[in-house]
């Protein structure tokens, strides 16, 4: 019904005002406690779901929580941490001019070059995208994993927001990969200069992909699961 524009002024918990801040500790019932499972793709809620059931509307597999979320996220995170070292040490790009010495660039030296040449705005963008964001992502995902495994009840809302932030900004680290791709594609002029990609860029691309996969495989609902009453305690 496209003509239906009214919002029912009932005391329903779903809020339509963006300005109203969410309140933590509000008594809410979770789907898990009600014995329902939400479809990860079309968000339909289902009752009485058995193992290996599929969503009756879109056919996606139904799980109470993302399967094996913590183990998968740990594996991807550790792999990303390992790749982070060569990504920052190895050169990402080698410039060979027709005359003169060849020049090797790492991620950091590229940023310093921008800063020294006066384009500090660009230096800040690249510094944020290729240095701060990956480091922030690794730190936040580690923090989320440790706090979930330790059943921490502190700062639930802050952690939920950090997860959302990481999921949004993670993709922007790909910036340096694209810059190296373009430089390689453009500067292949015999008699002027050539640019070769270095091993560092492959490691850096791996860090970006692995951390993106890690944040996708982490289930933010696990943060909130500690607020449920534990099985041994009275409800």
């Amino acid at each position, binding site marked *: 019904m496209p003509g239906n524009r009214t919002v029912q002024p009932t005391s329903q918990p779903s809020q339509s005002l963006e300005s109203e801040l*969410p309140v933590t500790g509000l008594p809410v019932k979770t789907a898990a406690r009600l014995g329902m499972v939400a479809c990860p793709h079309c968000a339909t809620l289902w009752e009485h779901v058995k193992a290996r059931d599929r969503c009756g509307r879109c056919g996606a597999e139904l799980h109470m929580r993302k399967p094996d979320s913590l183990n998968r996220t740990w594996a991807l995170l550790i792999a990303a941490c390992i790749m982070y070292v060569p990504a920052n040490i190895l050169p990402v790009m080698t410039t060979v001019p027709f005359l003169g010495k060849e020049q090797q660039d790492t991620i950091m030296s590229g940023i310093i070059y921008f800063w020294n040449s006066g384009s500090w705005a660009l230096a800040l963008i690249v510094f944020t995208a290729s240095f701060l964001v990956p480091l922030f992502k690794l730190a936040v995902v580690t923090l989320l994993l440790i706090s979930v495994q330790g059943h921490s009840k502190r700062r639930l809302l802050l952690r*939920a927001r950090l997860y959302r932030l990481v999921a949004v900004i993670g993709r922007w680290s790909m910036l340096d990969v694209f810059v190296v*791709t373009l430089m390689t594609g453009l500067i292949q002029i015999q008699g002027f200069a050539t640019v070769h990609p270095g091993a560092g860029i492959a490691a850096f691309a791996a860090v970006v992909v692995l951390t993106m996969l890690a944040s996708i495989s982490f289930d*933010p609902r696990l943060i909130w699961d500690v607020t449920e009453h534990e099985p041994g305690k009275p409800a």
Partner: protein
Amino acid sequence: MREVPDLIACEECDAVYRRSPLGRSEIALCCRCGAELERDRRAQRSRVLPLAVAGLCMYIIANVFPLLELESRGGLVSQATLMGSVHSLNTEGMLLVAFLVLATTILFPLIQLLALIYLLTFPIRFRRFGNPTAFNLTGRLIQILRPWVMVEIFLLGVIVAFVKLTSMATVLPGVALWACGALAFLLTAVFSFNPRCIYISRRAYKKKGE
């Protein structure tokens, strides 16, 4: 297994709410974690198909014409297209990185646009749902690929490379650069479309037919 149609669960904290009808462009937020529950997209829905077609046109221009033109002091000229850059990365032995760039800037945007146009024409315009498996897979594909379409990041990369090169030689922006910018904007607008609403409209259609 039974469907619970009048309830909705927050995707990020699992809190359950009663669905309430949303007004024009209203957003329902979870009051525990602040994540978005539902968003009214009736206003955008009629705009998505033309935007997706426009995006496809821009996509073709962005891939055919050169992105940047470089003129060195000696008068040597070099042009870089999207595909050419990926190819030279591949010849330098960076097969996996080349594939990653190919996927995020060339393959995935194309798949995304084609899948959207398919979903918006056959099931919505012509009321022809056809094979439900193909329909479901297309809807899911759009959602899975969404974080991996990186045209806007690529655009920023072009700008950074542009500034980097100005110290070495004269750089001119090509036609594809503008098309790339337009494509980034169009994709962002198109992504406001959520394939979920198709499932809802499909159900409404089925009910009407009964």
